[in-house]
């Protein structure tokens, strides 16, 4: 299993600013994943973060808008840049450990005003 600490748990940000979300795992994992959950919707994968290489982004997500860092095997950050109200969502980080369930942080609820 894996325990994930994600912060901040929520934030209210002004348009045009950026928010950086941190994700800390209690064990070393090869891949970490970042998801977005828009209001009333399911989770959509933003990108896969590997240590020592650039993140791999899903269709519709770009590095300029969602830069990701992965400095070591237990930590990652997701930045949501140039915020607009459409970015108001819950952002979650996740890890998997082999052929098992995915483990999730508690999420960051972002409101852009």
């Amino acid at each position, binding site marked *: 299993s894996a325990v994930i600490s994600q912060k901040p748990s929520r934030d209210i940000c002004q348009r045009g600013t950026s928010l950086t979300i941190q994700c800390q795992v209690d064990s070393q994992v090869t*891949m970490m*994943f970042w*998801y977005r959950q828009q209001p009333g*919707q*399911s*989770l*959509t*994968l933003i990108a*896969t973060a590997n240590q020592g290489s650039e993140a791999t982004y899903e*269709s519709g997500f770009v590095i300029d808008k969602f830069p990701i860092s992965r400095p070591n095997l237990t930590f990652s950050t997701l930045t949501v840049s140039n915020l607009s109200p459409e970015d108001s969502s819950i952002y*979650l980080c*996740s890890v*998997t450990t082999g*052929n*098992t*369930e*995915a*483990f*999730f*942080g*508690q*999420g960051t*609820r972002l409101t852009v005003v």
Partner: protein
Amino acid sequence: SQQGEEDPQALSIQEGENATMNCSYKTSINNLQWYRQNSGRGLVHLILIRSNEREKHSGRLRVTLDTSKKSSSLLITASRAADTASYFCATDWGGFKTIFGAGTRLFVKA
């Protein structure tokens, strides 16, 4: 997109009744998982079923998997008001990514 489909999108039942939710997916999988999410809260993992399994039970939950039809179902028996939540199926894609279905919103009336 690898996102699967779930039906129904919403389900309203009386307490004590059974609730069945279905999930379809698009490609071969190693496992399929079901999660619950209460309003505004984190995801709770319910059950994982592997591709070589056809049925799995956990308490009041029963999950089936039909890999030939690329579909799964989640049955909640003797539902309770506390079961009111959104339920998501999720599949592993490419052996490492977890891709979520659209979800079913379940409302259990007391």
